[in-house]
């Protein structure tokens, strides 16, 4: 269960270390960097949003980006770790993000949660 191609096991070890990480890891890493950049831009909007709904919208989008980021981090070290725990974390985070958004909206609208 590794990102390295199984046919590489037939190649001697010295050529394997010269191979470096697989190309898929670079794609996942670049996607992580793009997601972090987008989260920083959304954080700027959340800090200076004129209305409270701008802040809620930005925080909700940041939560969605965090879910995807955790799922991407799971695949960065696929050769040595089990990514299913990270995916459990991101499923739970997606549920909590949705519930928190609805709860904050309800609190703002009615000034109470019941």
């Amino acid at each position: 269960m590794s990102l390295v191609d199984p046919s590489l096991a037939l190649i001697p070890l010295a050529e394997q270390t010269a191979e470096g990480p697989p190309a898929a890891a670079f794609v996942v890493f670049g996607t992580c960097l793009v997601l972090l950049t987008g989260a920083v831009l959304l954080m700027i909007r959340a800090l200076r949003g004129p209305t409270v709904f701008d802040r809620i919208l930005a925080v909700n989008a940041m939560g969605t980006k965090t879910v995807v980021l955790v799922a991407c981090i799971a695949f960065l070290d696929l050769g040595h770790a089990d990514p299913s725990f990270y995916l459990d974390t991101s499923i739970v985070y997606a549920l909590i993000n949705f519930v928190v958004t609805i709860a904050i909206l309800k609190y703002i609208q009615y000034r109470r949660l019941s």
Partner: protein
Amino acid sequence: MGVLEIIGSVFMAIGALFALTGSVGVLRMPDFYSRLHPAGKSDTLAQALILLGLALFAGQQLLDTVTGPDEHGGHGDAWLGLANIMVKLVLLTALLFLTAPTATHAIAKAARLDRYTRVPVENDPGASRVAEIVVAGDVGEQLEETAGPVLDVGTAEPQRAEPEPEPEEDEP
């Protein structure tokens, strides 16, 4: 790189482009209702594309594990773990596809019902005034919200200064 990894890389590149576009749109759009557009649509498509790209990576691993040479006389349980990962990714994609537009719709509905909000005064960060979110093409007072008793939040007067208790409301 296998075929599925190449397709997954293309998916993830397009998804990352959509994610960055949505973030820049949320930061740069002029008013709140315009900001709903990139946050609601491009983020939903971006997360779907990125997670499906990751699922294709796992599918390439699964394909390599099943069809690859087995030195140990069997494949073991590696395919089961990879199938588990793919199922979780597809489940996460479906979950976000349901919840992200719902949350955006809830934010839009709440902002529409609460048309008068506090915005900061220009060149005076300490003060704020009650103002209306100006929307092009907004019909304003002529629009009658057919809201039920739960969503009936009152008149168009701004009441955010002091939330007085309302004894006659009949909510559960």
